[in-house]
């Protein structure tokens, strides 16, 4: 039996997938107060306005933490384990959870976050940047 990644999305999550461009980062932005938000929702988390655009935003951010997930509830991910999961504070505001493309030490790591496609499913991934002098 072939298994794929879990595909359950809310209507807003589906829109995120639709606006995702490989290598870019497209998130919701309020057209009134310019707040960038993630995960997607129907109202601006700051001003509660509903005029939200999907905007290409800056991809840079600080790595907050990462861990390697050894166990998954889904066979698709279990086969891929360990799954490198990171939390990233984006320069444009929100904290995102993303797959980390390479293991790295903790502390003061800059990353770049972008959309990517995994077995037909859209996810965020984070790539470490300033790794040159790190062990």
């Amino acid at each position: 039996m072939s298994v794929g990644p879990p595909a359950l999305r809310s209507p807003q999550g589906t829109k995120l997938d639709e606006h995702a461009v490989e290598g870019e980062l497209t998130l919701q932005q309020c057209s009134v107060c310019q707040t960038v938000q993630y995960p997607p929702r129907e109202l601006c988390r700051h001003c509660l306005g509903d005029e939200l655009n999907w905007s290409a935003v800056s991809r840079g951010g600080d790595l907050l933490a990462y861990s390697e997930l050894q166990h998954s509830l889904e066979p698709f991910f279990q086969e891929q384990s360990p799954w490198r999961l990171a939390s990233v504070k984006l320069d444009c505001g929100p904290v995102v959870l993303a797959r980390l493309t390479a293991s790295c030490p903790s502390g003061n790591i800059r990353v770049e976050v972008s959309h990517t496609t995994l077995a037909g499913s859209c996810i965020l991934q984070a790539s470490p940047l300033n790794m040159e002098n790190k062990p």
Partner: protein
Amino acid sequence: MTVRPQPYEGVALIAPVTVPYVRYSEHSAAWFIGSALAAMLQSSGLEKDAVDGLSVSSFTLAPDSAVSLVEHFGLQTRWLEQVGVGGASGVVAMRRAARAIQCGDADVVACIGGDTADPRSFTGTVANFSQFSNDAVYPQGAAGPNAPFSLITQRYMDTTGATREDFGRISVSQRYNANHYAGALLGHKTLDMQGYLDARQVAGPLHLFDCVMPCAGADGFLVTSVEKAQELGVPWLEILSADERHNAFAADPVQLRGGWELFADDLYSAAGVSPKDIDCLQTYDDYPVIVMLQFEGLGFCKPGGGAAFVRDTVLTFDGGGLPHNTNGGQLSVGQAGLGFLGVVESMRQLLGAADKHQVPEASLAMVSGYGMVNYDRGLCSAAAILRKGM
């Protein structure tokens, strides 16, 4: 004007009950919740018709709801609540029911947290836990709550210098407590520090004994008036103070503190006590790092000082330090029922009904709740200070 909760005077907590936890069950959540109600009636001597308020918390009740249960159980209530704040639900249900009693909206409220479990129900709950989780967490490895808590734990370790041994002190002492509580699912197994450290890795810094075991079971208690409790001739407890916060410190990039510190000082001053007066503490232990955040937020140590605190403080029920999660907590008893475990355990300790894990001369108890990882952190914090009625 600063808004603060009014006193809970005139309110009595009675009849703590537990429907024994089991790993899996063919029974529905309604069976567990209704069995808790039956046990409370037996314990208090009340007739079913005397219960005119019901507060229910469950992750596994759908498609039914609290009002469905009113019909299931043949009740007629004039006050009804379904509290859905995850592991904060026990404390929150208690304080809301207390207000209903004070205001005359109900005479006797049954507060119950209960869940069933089958081998697929946990995955079902996690896979569709919240919109944010569906869109932004579950597609990243589908590891359930282990995913965000592995990140919180790692960040806490990086920031404060806490080690795995520090978290182990919490898990190991709770297992010792569970070894003295017949209702703990893991109580028949001992756990020492080496066993904790050698356990298999689950997610980053989280290993097997950092994680709770979902299970089926129920806990509950009755909230009524002091007058009614005295009429029934049953021992009762009073709520000295209680409070809650939701989505506190939302701008913090990682959850290294919860909402407790926003109201802890008021809890102590309203109760006229300080942390050193607390005889036993029940925290919500979905993961040891969250226990540390509660030690810090509730004033038992300074922010970031959780690791040093557990190095210096004996946490077992009979160790003379700070008796903590005295029946083993969720880490050793099992996870069911959304934070009612700590309330019921606090009540048993104060009533002197904790049998082999009784804290000597426990007269003041604190219970804390935490819940609902909607995205990357738990949103709900609650806590209360309880005392034997006099």
